[in-house]
Structures are given as structure tokens and as C-alpha cells.
């Protein structure tokens, strides 16, 4: 009796030590898999917005992801719906469609057809119009817009400016 309760205590004491150790190692293991600080710090890109030709899709790169930049033509601006207009980014008087060029389904890069003025994702057949809105599932939502800040004619990707914050608050992008 005396002995067995002592064993019981030893078992519990070991359990407590092992438990603390197990939790501690899990934390360390989780943290070791996190993106490195150097990876996170390299996350900013500045674009000069005066160089883009109208109506042509240009692909930039930010955090290893493609960024679509499309300077809207007068015709696009005239014909756009309210929701398409709400997705516009205005820099130096010009209107742009800016988006992370990854399909919101599972992340393939959709290709742009200038004649159709739309994007087709070859992976699972999703489609988007020139403004970035979904026209055919499976993608669940319009292209995401990368965090940006406008400074004169430049745009800094990775920083959150008031224009981006407003888009985020109104649910236009994630």
C-alpha cells in the first residue's frame, strides 16, 4: 500500500516532467518551421506606375508571387460597373487593375487574353474578367489585391496605405 502510493506519485511526477518537456518541444518544432525573418523582411517591392502602357497586362513580382498590373483604357473606364470601379487603384491620375496573379482557387497563374479581355485558369477551368472578378467557378472570389501604399507616382507593395485599408475594410479584398 505504502509502496504502491509512492510509485503512483513517482509516475505522476514523471508524467508532469514529461508533459512540460513535450509541450516545450512542440513549441520549438512549430517555431522552427516558421518562415525566417530574412524571408519576411524581403517582402517589399516598389513600382514606378508611369511606365505602364494602356490595356496591356504586365506581370511584376512580389514575395515570389506574380502581380498583375493593367492600366485601364478609356473604353474600360467608360464601361466598368460600380464593383469593377471599386477595385480600381488610382495613381498619378491613371486607373489600374492591380492584383496578385494567383487564382483564388488553388493558386495557379491564370493567363490573360487581350482579345477576350479575360483570364483563364488552366488548372481547374476558372475564369476572371479583366477587372479581376470571377466569371466561372471553382475560384471562390475575385483576385486578391496585394497590400500597397501610394507615394507620388510610386506604389510600394507590402506596405498598407489608406487606400488599401479602405478596400480591405469594405471587403473588396482579403
Amino acid at each position, binding site marked *: 500500500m505504502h509502496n504502491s502510493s509512492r510509485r503512483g506519485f513517482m509516475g505522476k511526477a514523471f508524467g508532469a516532467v514529461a508533459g512540460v518537456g513535450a509541450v516545450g518541444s512542440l513549441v520549438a518544432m512549430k517555431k522552427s518551421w*516558421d518562415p525566417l525573418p530574412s524571408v519576411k523582411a524581403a517582402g517589399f517591392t516598389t513600382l514606378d506606375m508611369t511606365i505602364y502602357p494602356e490595356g496591356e497586362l504586365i506581370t511584376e513580382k512580389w514575395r515570389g508571387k506574380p502581380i498583375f498590373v493593367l492600366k485601364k483604357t478609356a473604353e474600360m473606364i467608360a464601361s466598368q460597373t460600380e464593383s469593377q470601379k471599386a477595385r480600381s487603384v488610382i495613381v498619378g491620375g491613371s486607373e489600374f487593375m492591380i492584383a496578385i496573379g494567383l487564382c*483564388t482557387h488553388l493558386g495557379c497563374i491564370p493567363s490573360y487574353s487581350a482579345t477576350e479581355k479575360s483570364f483563364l485558369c488552366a488548372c481547374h477551368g476558372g475564369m476572371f474578367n479583366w477587372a479581376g472578378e470571377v466569371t466561372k467557378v471553382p475560384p471562390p472570389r475575385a483576385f486578391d489585391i496585394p497590400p500597397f501604399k501610394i507615394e507620388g507616382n510610386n506604389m510600394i507593395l507590402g506596405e498598407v496605405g489608406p487606400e488599401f485599408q479602405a478596400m480591405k475594410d469594405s471587403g473588396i479584398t482579403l
Partner: protein
Amino acid sequence: MAHFTKATSVKDWLNQRLAVEKVEKVMASEYWIPKNINFLWAMGMVLAITFALLLVSGIFLLMYYQPHVDLAFDSVNYTIMREVDFGWLWRNIHGVAASVVFLVIYIHMFTGIYYGSYKKGREMIWISGMLLFVTFSAEAFSGYMLPWGQMSYWAGMVITNIFSLGGLHMDGLVEWIRGDYVPAQAFLSRFFMLHVLLLPLAIMGLIGLHFAALRIPHVNNQDGEEIDFDAESKKYLAGDKAGSKVMRFANDFMSKDMMVVGIFLIFFFYLVFYNYSFALDPVNFDPADMLKTPAHIYPEWYFLWSYEILRPFSVNIGLIAFGFAQVIFVLLPWLDRSPNAVPASRRGAFSVWFWLLLIDMIVLTAMGKLPPEGIFSTIGLVAALAFIVLWIALPFITMNEKKV
């Protein structure tokens, strides 16, 4: 202290220390196998041999492979394929075995389903088998990342994105898995670790569990007969080898097993030498380009059926259907409500269910390979719905089955 005597032979010396004779009996010469089984029961051994081939060829690839985003592609496509003497042999063996192992796993699984080898004490065999299937899938996927070609990169992108769980937007989890915003060096290094160490270790442990799970219930037989292994083995040991319903695992059953393995290996090396290209996707001979998705991406053939269950639906429903397809096979021993552990051919409605499921999975596989357009989209959708309906219907079909 235990009592040791002067050994009379090497065997006796080992016996005193390791009980080798007893171990040999338990594992081989007195591990009893029914006589009424066919070549389909050799698939387990074929799998074990294929795993050994993967291990050996993998060790040789490992000596020249460079897990770095700038070097990986050339280390495989140039160094191993052209510079290393017989490097191509190891790569072809590894690639062909990775593909063929899934074909054999599917045959092995469907054999188990057909003969009801997942119930009446064989549940742990089934569960450990499904765990093997899952770890093999992870092993195949992580290995596919290593050449760092276009298909590696984009498959890595799409599959890791599944972990954002659609509408839950768990992008943080995806970035954690990758160690970066997109698949890059951190991603390649950790998938390399998984492929060459952690997952093979897990597989070896699971193979051990799978074999241990077989030892007590023994393997099933093609007539669904309930054999009294104690009585039958006594009969055998008493000298009535012909009258007994069982035989020794070694050497009796092994000799049959190895016959099938021999035929398999001839077919396997025919593929390795003359027809290996099916296992190496041409798109993966372009180096990874993070700014260009290949025109048409699809997984390796063995993942196509579950990919096709994901594809026709909107993202959240697709993910739910995909999750369902991944786990549902594990639950088979409980979804099948019938007490009969006999071949499907004697189980009425279940037999129809079995063949429909097999055909449905073949259709899903074919549609998964085709572009998601027009009639193919529709067939894919119907087949995906049929898969779900079949599994939901299973308990109802088997509930009313008559005892045979």
C-alpha cells in the same frame, strides 16, 4: 542470473541468447497460411519488394542529388542522368517503382474489399494498410517536389494551398508549411527531409504494424472459410500435410509468393529499361518558373481520382468532397454492416456495389487527366457524385444482407 551452457553450435549459441529458433517458428515456419488463396495474396509481398527497390535506388540517388533551388534540377537531369555511371538506372527504377507501387496498392486494397478481409478481427490490418496508403501518398508527393521542375513547383503550390481550407483562409498555415510565401528554398529543404528520412521511417514502422496485425487473425482466404488455425496446424505437424487446410509461411507459401514476385519483377524491369517515360512527366523537364503556370496541370495518375472529386465543385464543397474521399476508406470495416466475410460474388447487392465503386474510380481517374471542359466536366461531376452516393449507401445495402 539466467543459466547459460557451453554452446554446441553457432545456432545453439544464438538460441541461448536470442531464441532464434522460437522467433523463426513464430514468424515463418509456424506462421500458418490457408491453402485456398490465389495470386492476389502475393501482392503484399510484391509491395514489400517494391518498397525495397525504392529504398535502394533512393540511396544511390541521394549521393548526387542537391536539395537547393538553383542546383536541384541540374543535379537530377544532368548529373544523375548523364554523368553518373548507371545514374539513369537508379532514377528509372525509382520513378517506375513509385508509380507501380500505387497500382499494386490499389490491387491489394480492392482484393481486401472483394474478399471482406477487413472485418472479424482484421480491422487493424485494414487501418494500418490505410495509414500506409496515406504515408505512401505523402512520400510520393514530397519526392515529386525534388527535381524542382515546373510540375514540381506548381503541384507544390496547388497542394499546399489546399491547407488554407478554402473559406477558412488559413494562409498562415500554408506559409508555415512552406516556410515562405511561395514554395522556395525552405520548402524544398523540408520536403527533402520528409522524403528521405521522416516518411520512410514512418513507412517502415507502419509495415511492421501491418505485419503484426496479420499475425493473430491470419490472412483471409478466397472462400471466406473460417479456419481453425490451431486444429489445422496440429494436423499438419502430425504429418497430415495433405489433409490440413493450412501450410507453413516459409518455405511453402513463400515459394508461391516469390513465383509471383519473379513474374512481377520481369514486368517491372521491362518498364524500367524500355518503357519508363510514363513515370517521368515531360513538363517536369522544364525548370521551375514561378511566373508561369504550365498550360495544363494534373497530378500523377494515382492521385487523379481524388483530384477529380475536388475539381468540379466550388472551392468549399470541393474540399469537403475531397476530405470525404480521403478518409472514407478507413471507415470501411464499420460502414459495411453485414456479418459476412466472404467473397463479394456471394454477397448479392454488395457485389454490385463493389464493381460500381471500381468502375467509378476508373472513370474518375480518366476524367482527372482530361481538361476540365464540356462533356468531360459533366462526366467528372456525375462520377464524383456517384462516389459519394455509393459510400453513403453502403451501410444501407449491407444492413439487410442475409447471413451466408
